[in-house]
């Protein structure tokens, strides 16, 4: 590629706003406590591999302590707190998140590797919005369509992933508290820091002790939480593989689960689409958050008549994606979250080449330290290729083609997943027809990767059980609603 027309000067966001402790305990019953495991692990910055803090590894005894605290808080305080008062705690949390928004944004970028542009404009404001939205539900639940006297489950076990650490926390904690449940939250192993900072917000909001408990750790900590005998409900966001394990492990116990799992979303561009907008939409669909998005548009389905022109424009646009320092305000694509995820992306990409697809990566220079992967597309992909079937969870797009709208629908639905899909056409009736045919919980037409607390999110088929957000998402935390 030729030189950039405009050279961007570095525009780094200051990290001085974040004051990290060198060590963190577990947040149980409103207090910071050392882990009974006596073990700690490092949370690192994936863009530089520098250590950010030492974090506690919660074990079974820690989980037990947290569940007991949540149970006591439920029995003694939270279930007796009037709904309108519960609402005000949630409003407080929303406001505190807004007040400390920049701090959360910078910390999220440091711990996760995602660009500050996204944490500042998407993750953090949406997290605050989720609390604000659900706060209003707390004293109006009898209007939500789940009976005149909707009741909470009690103690909810919540396990969240590393791709949107604070936002997934908000998606889980806000509706659980609004409906009157107490929570034991297990953040992802590689991104625990914003959840720990959120514990401070709970303290500032004077949320009663034990209503929210944060137990950091790895998969073993999560398993201990799911298998604890005194939880009333499980809410999990993560891989389909782990989701099935959780579903299986609670099958005998009669407790319900909400599962937000993987996806292999089709982003379908018809020949009558607004091409320039569609190119932007495809870019946003797969490169937003480094492609670490369960609802990413990771399969591009192009109508044959526009393939050449579209791919030329797409590659030209990909070449302008700015990859690098997540704290730089101009950065579009940040770091891959972990070495493990990077090797998974590499392995799947290599399978694409081996199985006969053609690879093209944007010509960008990658930093020497940290975990990085360039924006990449595969053309000549068939439905049998692993890169068309398996979730890559990285900045890698698989391009398939179709001749008729019916063929596009068949290909789009040819997956065990059913989380998201995109439709690009100027023709209204075609949008509504395609939206009807597609087996996915979220359909974006002439847009992609849009989220809102009022909009239910969740998948068909093996993309999970239940919805999060909106009136429909409340059902996940109201006993007997589903």
């Amino acid at each position, binding site marked *: 590629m030729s030189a950039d027309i405009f050279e961007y000067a570095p525009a780094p966001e200051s990290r001085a706003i974040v004051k990290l402790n060198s060590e963190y305990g577990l947040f149980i019953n409103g207090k910071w406590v050392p882990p009974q495991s006596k073990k700690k692990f490092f949370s690192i910055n994936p863009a530089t591999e520098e250590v950010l803090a030492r974090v506690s590894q919660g074990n079974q005894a820690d989980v037990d302590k947290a569940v007991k605290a949540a149970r006591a808080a439920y029995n003694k305080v939270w279930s007796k707190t009037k709904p309108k008062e519960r609402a005000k705690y949630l409003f407080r949390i929303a406001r505190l998140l807004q007040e400390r928004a920049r701090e959360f944004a910078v910390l999220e970028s440091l711990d996760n590797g995602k660009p500050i542009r996204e944490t500042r404009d998407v993750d953090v404001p949406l997290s605050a*919005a989720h609390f604000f939205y659900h706060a209003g539900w707390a004293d109006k639940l009898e209007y939500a*369509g789940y009976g005149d006297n909707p009741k909470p489950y009690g103690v909810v076990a919540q396990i969240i992933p590393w791709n949107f650490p604070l936002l997934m926390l908000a998606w889980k904690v806000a509706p659980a508290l609004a409906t009157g449940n107490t929570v034991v939250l297990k953040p992802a192993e590689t991104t625990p820091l914003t959840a720990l900072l959120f514990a401070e917000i709970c303290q500032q909001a004077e949320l009663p002790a034990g209503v929210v408990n944060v137990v950091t750790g790895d998969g073993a900590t999560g398993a201990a939480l799911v298998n604890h005998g005194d939880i009333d409900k499980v809410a999990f966001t993560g891989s*389909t593989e782990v*989701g*099935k394990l959780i*579903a*299986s492990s609670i*099958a*005998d*116990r*009669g407790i319900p689960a909400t*599962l937000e*799992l993987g996806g292999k979303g089709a982003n379908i561009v018809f020949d009558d689409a607004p091409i320039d907008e569609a190119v932007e939409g495809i870019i946003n669909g797969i490169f937003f958050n480094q492609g670490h998005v369960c609802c990413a548009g990771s399969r591009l389905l192009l109508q044959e008549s526009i393939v050449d022109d579209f791919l030329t424009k797409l590659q030209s646009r990909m070449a302008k994606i700015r990859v690098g320092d997540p704290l730089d305000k101009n950065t579009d694509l940040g770091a891959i979250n972990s070495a493990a995820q990077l090797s998974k992306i590499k392995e799947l990409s290599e399978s694409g080449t081996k199985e006969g697809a053609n690879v093209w990566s944007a010509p960008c220079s990658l930093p020497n330290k940290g975990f990085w992967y360039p924006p990449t597309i595969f053309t000549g992909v068939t439905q049998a290729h692993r890169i068309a079937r398996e979730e890559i969870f990285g900045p890698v797009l698989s391009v398939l083609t179709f001749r008729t709208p019916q063929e596009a629908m068949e290909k789009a639905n040819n997956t*065990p997943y*059913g989380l998201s899909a995109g439709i690009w056409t100027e023709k209204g009736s075609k*949008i509504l027809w395609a*939206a*009807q045919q597609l087996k*996915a*919980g*979220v*359909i*974006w*037409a*002439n*847009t992609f990767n*849009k989220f*809102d607390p*009022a*909009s*239910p*999110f*969740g998948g*068909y*088929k*093996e993309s*999970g*059980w239940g*919805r999060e957000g*909106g*009136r*429909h998402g409340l059902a996940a935390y109201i006993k*007997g*609603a*589903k």
Partner: protein
Amino acid sequence: MRIDVMKTYKLYIGGAFPRSESGRSYELKDKKGNFIANPALASRKDLRDAVVAAKAAFSGWSHATAYNRGQILYRMAEMLEGRTEQFVAEIKALEGVSDSVARKQVQDSIDLWVWYAGWSDKISTTSGGTNPIAGPYYNFTIPEPLGVVGVIADEKESLLGLTRGLAPVITSGNTAVLIASERLPLSAISLAEVMATSDLPAGVVNILTGSKSELIPWLASHMEVDGIDLSGADKKLDGEIKKAGTENLKRIYRFEKDASLKRILSFMEYKTVWHPIGI
């Protein structure tokens, strides 16, 4: 004296009434020990055929208008009403209840079909809607049918057990594979005759008679079955059925009430659609 024409009780798969491909049947006696029938003892292969038929019928049935589905369910109630005597006789023979108890069960079943028939074109109104998102987008959520739902009929009330399982599943556009009661299968097969004369498209409901313990594991692990109403199964089997169902994350539920919107919505998925607003 005239010799009765006895009925051969067969399966109901894809709108046809086949015997089990296995050639098996089992002997059914009334409460007094008199021979009644030899219903088919359905096999795993029959179950798979039933799922294939249900899957094939899904596209047409789920895309039929809600008004059309409602009319067909109502038509089933009409057919049931006309065959009341047949169902009363079968219920009396197998359940050993009085004429009035059997009659009440048939009437309750008819009324329940009518109740669910009326739901078909109201579900989206009560349970979908537009969402006030913070941006220039039009955003709406609608419930859609899940796909193929397995229904396990209960062992207590022959006809009512079928009605409360099947009606909520198909009114929304799902197709169904029913495992009939082992002890009380006559109403299931007679209900198939009602369906076959109610304009219900072939394959929308498929009915298997036979051994529950043999068929349920295959139903629970079948990758093309999307949900199961296990209300009619032994509670002790819940864990096993749910575990087998995790392979494709089946939606598996047990219900208490006969007439409830929850029975309908549990086998539906919410789809949310976004589109920009602008000129």
